[in-house]
């Protein structure tokens, strides 16, 4: 199944993962991923027909609580971590020309 990793697939994964990859990195990623997937394909040996996929070990359903604010206003401390900040807001690069 290793042949599924085409140039298009790697480019697509780069888009999904939001990672800019150099030509070398793309090649490396393709070889790493092909190897890993060939190994992961071992799961195919198991018959899992009718097995309910288990995302959680315990049957915990949605846990609800009242939406009450318990923390104080931390805007200033939070903005200290921002790469760029202006007038109490995060600054992002221009999105539209």
């Amino acid at each position, binding site marked *: 199944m290793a042949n599924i990793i085409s140039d298009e*697939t790697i480019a*697509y*994964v*780069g888009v*999904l*993962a*939001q*990672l*800019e*990859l150099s030509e070398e*990195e793309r090649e490396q*990623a393709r070889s*790493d*991923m092909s*190897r*890993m*997937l060939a*190994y*992961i*394909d*071992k*799961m*195919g*040996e*198991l018959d*899992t027909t009718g*097995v*309910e*996929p*288990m*995302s*959680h*070990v*315990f049957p*915990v359903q*949605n*846990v609800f*609580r009242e939406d009450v604010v318990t*923390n104080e206003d*931390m805007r200033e*401390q*939070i903005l*200290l*971590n*921002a*790469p*760029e900040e202006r007038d109490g807001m*995060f600054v*992002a*690069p*221009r*999105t539209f020309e």
Partner: protein
Amino acid sequence: MGIADMTAVELSAAVRAGQITAVQAVEEILTCIEERDALYNCYVTVDREGALAQAKEVQAKIEAGHLTGPLAGVPVAVKDNLCTKGLRTTCASRMLGNFVPTYTAEAVTNLRKAGAVILGKTNMDEFAMGSTTETSAYGVTRNPWNREHVPGGSSGGSAAAVAAGECICALGSDTGGSIRQPAAFCGTVGMKPTYGTVSRYGLIAYGSSLDQIGPLTKDVRDCAAVLEAIASHDVKDSTSLQRQDTDFMSALTEDVQGMRIGIPDDYLGEGLDEDVRAAVLKAAEELAGRGAVVERFDLSLVEYAIPAYYTIAAAEASSNLERFDGIKYGYRTGNDAGLHSMYRKSRAEGFGEEVKRRIMLGSFVLSSGYYDAYYLKALQVKALIKKAFDEAFAKYDVILGPVAPTTAPKLGESLADPLKMYLGDIYTIAVNLAGLPGISLPCGKDRKGLPIGLQLIGDCFQEKKLIRAAYTYERSRGPFGTAGGAGHGTAADERAQADAGSFRTSGEGQVSQCGMLWQGGKSGRPVSEQSTEGTDRTNRTGGIPS
């Protein structure tokens, strides 16, 4: 005995009895860090001022009778993926190089409530992805038993800090063995509790359905003490469980009479180092000698755990790490040409190789067209693995086996082949998939003198059985020795005994207790001047008559 060689329970008792103060204890360990961390690089950040301020507060509370527990006044280290308010938290990534959290992880808050003093943040594999602590953006951590070897990972800094006496005990996190394996490689005790026992609030997420915080300690008693302190129900973590039975120290009894212990055949099979196998089987015999009923059995599906794990962990990682967008916090590229290009460049420059590898694999297995074949399939395999454990625990109280197929590999040996590194997780990984508790404790050394770990696995909520079995084995085994003390029964131990009771603190013109023990002589020669050839610590204690 030097403060750095004491367990948490011993140290806290001495502090509460007024033999030493919490401030003296913290000063002593800070001195050890200064002397030794250049050798091992256990810490990313040491919070000297903060630790001393906390120690003063704790001392006052002890004197006022408000702190009476077994962690009061104990200096601890915290893995650098646990948020600490006002103290840089990097996840060992360039991405979070200047990140200062505005809140503290619940487990750390619980430790502080118990009177522990946070010394600083320990090194790890970047975003906890790795098994050697070599993927850190802040340099590799070295194994205190032999500096040419890795400490394991991803909680390698925490394990090495405990082994090197650079803290009394530590917190780590375990997604696929990241507490148990470094504990084994560094000759310390490490425990991954039942999923949901310790709140994940403030733990920077890797694989959320697998991540669990736990202790790394010098012995089983400390492990129970730390776990008892950090376990709590927390409304801030929706996967947090309400448990009444978190008085783990009550399980510290020497009693395995009639305990049914199963050893999976597959855990002793191909790929297992001979020394590890022999040590683990000897530990099993020891427990049998104490009245346990030990049997071999077939735990099926072992070989499917790694493929299922890496699929699920990578999928969750790719989703969890989407938040790093270079806007709200974290690294932002210097050459941003627009929003989307900025995202891609910031992430490409901010994340290391292994993190990117897992994000890409995760993005792939979650993408339409492959979701069913990989991600859903892995969740089905996980269900089957859980069922296999359920069947095993119908027959056995505890499952016993090795922690890892080998002892600590040499630096640089693992990263060349990621898949090979992943295969080293074979005995620890299924425990996370099934949400089970597991403990790792030292059970011997290999021919190179490197520690070997014994793993005990329990059914969900059966930490007390694990603690009971581990404590019984530990008592039966006797002292394991420390990385710095050149093993038990040596001149170092005799000297330590002679020194017991005389607590000294470091100061101007005074050689610290920890320094003397560490250097293996009273010459007061700084560690940095010692030869680092012959990295086995026993070789460096040349001044001691043997």
